[in-house]
């Protein structure tokens, strides 16, 4: 029997009750705080320099798409038989310094208490070159990537997802191995076993389902991307089976574009086919390609990058003293005569993007007239444009300017030396080749070297060039090197005039 000789007073009972309520409230607040700090708030490494931010800063792609950091670190070790000692470099990922933890274009963000990594803008927009006889690889932030093998990268994840050997045990063992150095504690191992791994596995399998069509595509090769077909599948669940997409639309791989000097490009028809004239919309759309979603996009981060590339100067030709000024002067006259109306012009006062003066600059040229490969143009459909214009519905930054065009757009040629290969699909290795009729352009050539041909302006395309080479066959769907030829395009000029034009274009 409980003694009633030491009863609590009503005040003590009330205080104890209040205390329990307060305790419950405090515990709830603390739980809420922990929930917010761990599961809601995201932690991003910030970079002071806009360029560093471009190279390594997060744009929000990790939240929905990115694998955990330790998974990203473990995969090259688990699949060293496929990736070899290069690791992610096998897919053309670049490292600023050899001992860098993550490659350029892979950013990190802590989401729901787990550090995750994924792609940012620079993965597709950092180019490289080596001068003849010089083993040093130079990076050009803002230039089109000439190394990234995105298709193979995607296929790798699909394969991993389908690999029976990709198990929680194997993953955790690899993370904890000395080569990766994860050293997970017991709680982390539990989280990885029961939360992280199942989600990663599921995400890879889903990726394989959604992007199954990729294996039906022609190989993109290094430095090329099919911009819109994965976009259709991932963002809008477009059916991508053979009954719903033609062979032409399926193969629209293109070179990455350069992203410098965006300010004068505002209002021009952007993208290869000119389907949007707003730099901001183009950027936000491109970020979707890197893995952000309309929900996870870090608009502030993208705005920083946008501000940086607004006036980012185009890179000067790396060996200016090798430019024959007399020939360049001659080429300048020819350029003004043949090229400037579509591409603008550069003289002593700088590059002119004046669309009043150069009336075709920033406008599209109908397919029949330009004659280049139709794959890229075909892959962009009116239905797709309509879907794009529904993205971010309800927000001030909702897309509104996407539209289907009749051809390909004329762009300024500032820094054109650093944008090889040429034409939208990268089918012509050098500027000099581009000035030849298509029949005299290389039909099968090697793509993937970043060794520079200073005379013809472009990466070396012969089989003895250094690097991980890809056989580019211009007869394959989407790879045609036709078009941009004829009298109007200078391909009927004498060789000396073509040489002069190339010389001048080194100065752009």
């Amino acid at each position, binding site marked *: 029997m409980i003694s009633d000789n030491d*009863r609590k*007073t*009503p*005040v*003590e009972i*009330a*205080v104890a009750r*209040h205390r329990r309520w307060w305790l419950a409230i405090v515990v709830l607040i603390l739980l809420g705080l922990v929930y917010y700090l761990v599961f809601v708030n995201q932690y991003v490494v910030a970079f002071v320099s806009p360029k560093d931010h471009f190279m390594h800063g997060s744009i929000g792609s990790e939240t929905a798409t990115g694998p955990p950091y330790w998974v990203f670190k473990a995969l090259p070790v688990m699949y060293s038989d496929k990736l070899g000692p290069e690791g992610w470099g096998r897919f053309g990922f670049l490292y600023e310094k050899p001992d860098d933890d993550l490659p350029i274009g892979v950013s990190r963000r802590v989401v729901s208490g787990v550090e995750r990594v994924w792609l940012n803008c620079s993965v597709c927009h950092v180019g490289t070159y080596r001068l003849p006889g010089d083993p040093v690889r130079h990076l050009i932030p803002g230039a089109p990537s000439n190394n990234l093998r995105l298709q193979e990268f995607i296929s790798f994840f699909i394969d991993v997802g389908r690999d029976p050997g990709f198990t929680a045990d194997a993953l955790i063992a690899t993370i904890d191995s000395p080569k990766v150095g994860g050293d997970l504690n017991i709680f982390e191992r539990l989280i990885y076993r029961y939360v992280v791994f199942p989600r990663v596995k599921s995400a890879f399998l889903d990726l394989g389902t959604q992007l199954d069509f990729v294996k039906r595509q022609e190989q993109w090769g290094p430095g090329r991307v099919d911009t819109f077909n994965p976009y259709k599948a991932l963002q809008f669940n477009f059916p991508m089976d053979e009954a719903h997409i033609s062979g032409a639309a399926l193969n629209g791989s293109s070179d990455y574009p350069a992203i410098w000097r965006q300010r004068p490009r505002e209002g021009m028809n952007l993208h290869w086919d000119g389907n949007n004239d707003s730099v901001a919309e183009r950027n936000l759309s491109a970020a979707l390609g890197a893995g952000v979603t309309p929900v996870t996009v870090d608009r502030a981060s993208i705005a920083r990058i946008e501000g940086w590339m607004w006036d980012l100067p185009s890179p000067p030709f790396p060996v200016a003293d090798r430019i024959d000024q007399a020939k360049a002067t001659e080429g300048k006259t020819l350029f003004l005569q043949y090229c400037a109306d579509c591409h603008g012009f550069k003289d002593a006062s700088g590059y002119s993007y004046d669309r009043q003066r150069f009336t075709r600059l920033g406008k599209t040229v109908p397919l029949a007239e330009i004659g280049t490969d139709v794959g890229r143009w075909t892959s962009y459909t009116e239905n797709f444009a309509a879907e794009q214009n529904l993205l971010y519905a309800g927000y001030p930054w909702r897309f509104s300017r996407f539209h289907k065009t009749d051809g390909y757009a004329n762009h300024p040629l500032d820094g054109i030396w650093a944008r090889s290969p040429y034409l939208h699909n990268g089918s012509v290795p050098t500027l000099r080749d581009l000035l030849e009729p298509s029949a005299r352009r290389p039909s099968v050539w090697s793509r993937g070297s970043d060794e520079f041909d200073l005379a013809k302006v472009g990466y070396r395309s012969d089989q003895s060039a250094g690097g991980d080479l890809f056989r580019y066959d211009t007869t394959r769907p989407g790879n045609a090197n036709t078009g941009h030829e004829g009298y109007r395009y200078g391909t009927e000029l004498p060789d000396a005039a073509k040489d002069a034009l190339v010389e001048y274009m080194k100065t752009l």
Partner: protein
Amino acid sequence: MHPDSQYTHADNAAVIFNELTFRSLRVKNRLFRSNISGQFDDYNGHGGHARLNWEEKFARGGIGCIISSFTPVSVRGRILVRYAMIDNDDKIPFWREVGNRVHAYDCRFIMQLSHSGRQQDMGGVENLFNKGLSSTNKSDYFHGLLAQAMTKPEIAEVVEQFAQGARRARQAGLDGVELHGANGYLLTQFLSSGINDRTDEYGGGWEGRARFVLEIVRAIRREVGQDFHLQMKINGVDHNDWLYPWIGKGNTLDETVKICTMLLDGGKGVDSFHISSGSTFPHPRNPAGDLPLNDLHRWYDGMLSQGTRAPMNYAIFSNPILGRAFQALWRWRRGKVIEGINLDYARAVSEEIGKIAPDIRVLCTGGFQHADRIADAIRSKACDGVTMARPLVANNDLPDILTRQNGPEKECTYCNKCLLNDLENPLGCYDLSRFDGNSFEERYDRMIKQVMSVYEPPTFQ
């Protein structure tokens, strides 16, 4: 005294020291000691010799009438222990002696019949397991003192306790009784629209809320007849929202006037009204003055076991920033006026009641200690007399001083240290700045001597 006043001190003194007649009471001047007390008595509510000394010194100082300290009509209605009660006939001899002591100075003595309700600061060990009887189950919002809404039998019981208290006061030879219906005690808890949340006939509109007091008035008249002075202390305005602006404001002046009219009970009810304000105790308007943080920190600890919010209050008072902030709130909610803070309320009651019953008198409390202010208040017909407590604690002979001059040399500073010390120490003036001396020790010795004077002469000599 204002230099431009059209009245001389002699004019003022003539007004103040003019006899005041009630229906059943005559007072030699217009100065009343308001209810204030220390814990001078036996724990069980029997009076002690210190209270005799305490009351006598004010009579000696020239006060016209003393209103007793808070005098509980039952042990359940205490606010603090060691306060003399009137809960039993065995208390009558003590109160008779009190009456005798003050009558010797031609001073009248009115017993304040009181009940704490929920506002029971330290109810003593007898009340340890009781919640305060009240009109509501809601606890007091300042200290968190627990409350229990009274049943109708409990209401009837308390009505009778008041009636018997009045009977005892008359039997003790005292000169009248006052119902403490102000400052948050039980009667306020029924009267105030900010506190009374009853849905029966004792709640609702002002008539319902005043029913409990009217029943007490009628029960008292049943016991003491019509020729025994009965007055009502009541809030002019409740200002119930001083601490939490979102809670009910309580009674307005208009409601108070209506309640007062009702309590006249057709000429058979109360004989006078004593106007105060503030529906809690303490309240920024009562006692109007400052909030001494050091004393709060030192002496409020006794409340920690009494109210559910007292620990939070103590933490606030003890915090250098929050304590200052609370003190600033206190001053802001009080306003700038201290002396005569309730005068406008008293004027409104005087005017309205005067139209109905010209023989009903109105007293006003609130910091009075200057002859010109008191005389002006009476001359303007805002009230017929003033009540005072802290100025008399500071200067026990203030009435005699006012016969000679406008105010005392060392005025009450309204510091309210007397109020805070009462929780644990003998009542007296604890404002060291008012005591002469060349050092702290000298002034402190004089202060303690003054405080302890209430124990002189001792019980046994």
